[in-house]
């Protein structure tokens, strides 16, 4: 599903990603951890083709990402849902409109939008907040809207770059339950995080990166450096 084959992307020597090999199967749930500056966001950006690798190959689903022409990039991105630490909701749109927006920009028919948006809002558990604007929602609720938006076009992969980074622990666990649930419905989930307790309690595959290199890749608890807020 996701394959990094000897991928190197160095901003300068020792900074970025250095000869990374990763294989993630369809339907897996994977944590990507490591100290600040390790190269986690670089990994995500390479997957989203925000960046191109210096060398190596990146394959996601049917797409050979590093060989993708610019014209094909939008089509490829539709297969990937993305969630960020800062939610990135549009402040002047309601929860419903924020999710519908993701379908509108792909010219999905109105009937499909009216059917699918409520379904996905109910899946993430905020049907009752559909008409609220982001500033009227709690952080966890905003992140649920963002997840709904990432999922509404049925991506094969959900990428989350520190989705709980701005949330208190209790709320964070709610989001983790949601991501787990989404994963059980068949979506591959790749989550970047600094939250050691979440990683070690979830019993999922853990890939740890340090200074651009993969230093740990298993379901075993990871005890190395993670940086960030250690709870």
């Amino acid at each position, binding site marked *: 599903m996701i394959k990094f084959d000897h991928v190197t992307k160095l901003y300068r020597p020792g900074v970025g990603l250095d000869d990374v090999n990763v294989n993630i199967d369809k339907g897996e749930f994977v944590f990507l951890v490591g100290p600040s500056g390790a190269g986690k966001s670089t990994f995500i950006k390479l997957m*989203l083709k925000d960046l191109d690798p210096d060398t190596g190959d990146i394959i996601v689903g049917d797409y050979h990402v590093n060989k993708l022409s610019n014209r094909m990039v*939008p*089509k490829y*991105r539709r297969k990937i849902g993305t969630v960020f630490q800062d939610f*990135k909701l*549009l402040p002047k749109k309601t929860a419903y409109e924020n999710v519908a927006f993701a379908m509108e*920009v792909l010219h999905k028919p109105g009937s499909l939008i009216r059917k699918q948006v409520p379904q996905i809002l109910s899946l993430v558990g905020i049907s009752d907040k559909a008409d609220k604007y982001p500033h009227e929602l709690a952080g966890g609720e905003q992140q649920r809207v963002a997840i709904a938006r990432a999922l509404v*076009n049925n991506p094969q992969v959900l990428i989350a770059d520190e989705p709980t980074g701005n949330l208190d622990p209790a709320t964070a666990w709610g989001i983790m339950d949601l991501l787990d649930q989404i994963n059980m419905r068949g979506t591959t989930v790749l989550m970047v995080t600094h939250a050691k307790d979440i990683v070690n309690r979830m019993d999922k595959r853990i890939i740890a990166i340090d200074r651009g290199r993969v230093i740990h890749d298993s379901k075993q608890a990871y005890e190395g450096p993670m940086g960030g807020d250690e709870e």
Partner: protein
Amino acid sequence: MISSLFYNIKQAFVQIFRNRGMSAASIFSILAMLLILGLVFIIVVNINLFTEIVKQDYDQVEVFIVDGTSEQQVQEVKAQIEAQPGVTSVEYRSQEDALKIMKERWGESGYLLDSLGDNPLPASLMISVESLDDAGSVASFAGKFDIIEDVQYYKDTVDKLTRITHFLQIAGMIIMAFLVIVSVVVVSNTIKLTVMARADEIHIMKYVGANNWFIRGPFMVEGIIIGLIASLIAGGAIALIYKQIVAAVGDQVFAIVSSPLISVQYMTVNLLIIFVALGCSIGAWGSIVSMRRYLKA
């Protein structure tokens, strides 16, 4: 789709007004460029028209005959000139003919010539040549006869006009290219303000997989509206300016070179089309430039 187009147009006006300082600078810079283009265009087009008229009507060399030359001498010279290669016909023009032609050309002011006592105009031979290129050799041949006091032809004039036109075209193009680039930069900086204000929206659209042209849409609308405003102002201004020019010097120009200026209406319509096309392109181009960084992948 239609409603979203209206929505985008409305949003574009909101943004243009919100950043009105920058918007005004953009409009002004496009306007200045279009006005310079318009003036160059007016001059070039009129010179071209004049050149064409001169070429058609004056594929001729006129040689003036010394006063008191006998009819027989004239006929001899005429015959020799007719035998020259490139000469299609030679017509004798008496002093009286010359005066009549001049009166016609002067039109309403023709009566002024009535006050002349003796006819001061010389008789001449009008030599028609196949093309103006033959005029030079025919003129120098005719000039050698003793009975010819002066030779006049228009090749020099036409060549000079063509050179001036070329020079103006090239100078105009260089100035234009420079101004186009300046305008694009100014416009792109204006739109960059909108782009920054909507950076989140662009990011989301990008990550959701919207097409680049879809993402550019609203910003291009803004650029095109800026270009459109500038081009309409420029079109109005150039129409007024040209009307003044025609009113002020049109008649004199006609009297001197017997060629009219291009009509105000024709000029305005054509310039307006050019202005709108160019103004909108610059606006659109500026908006593409302003988003390059956001959409490179």
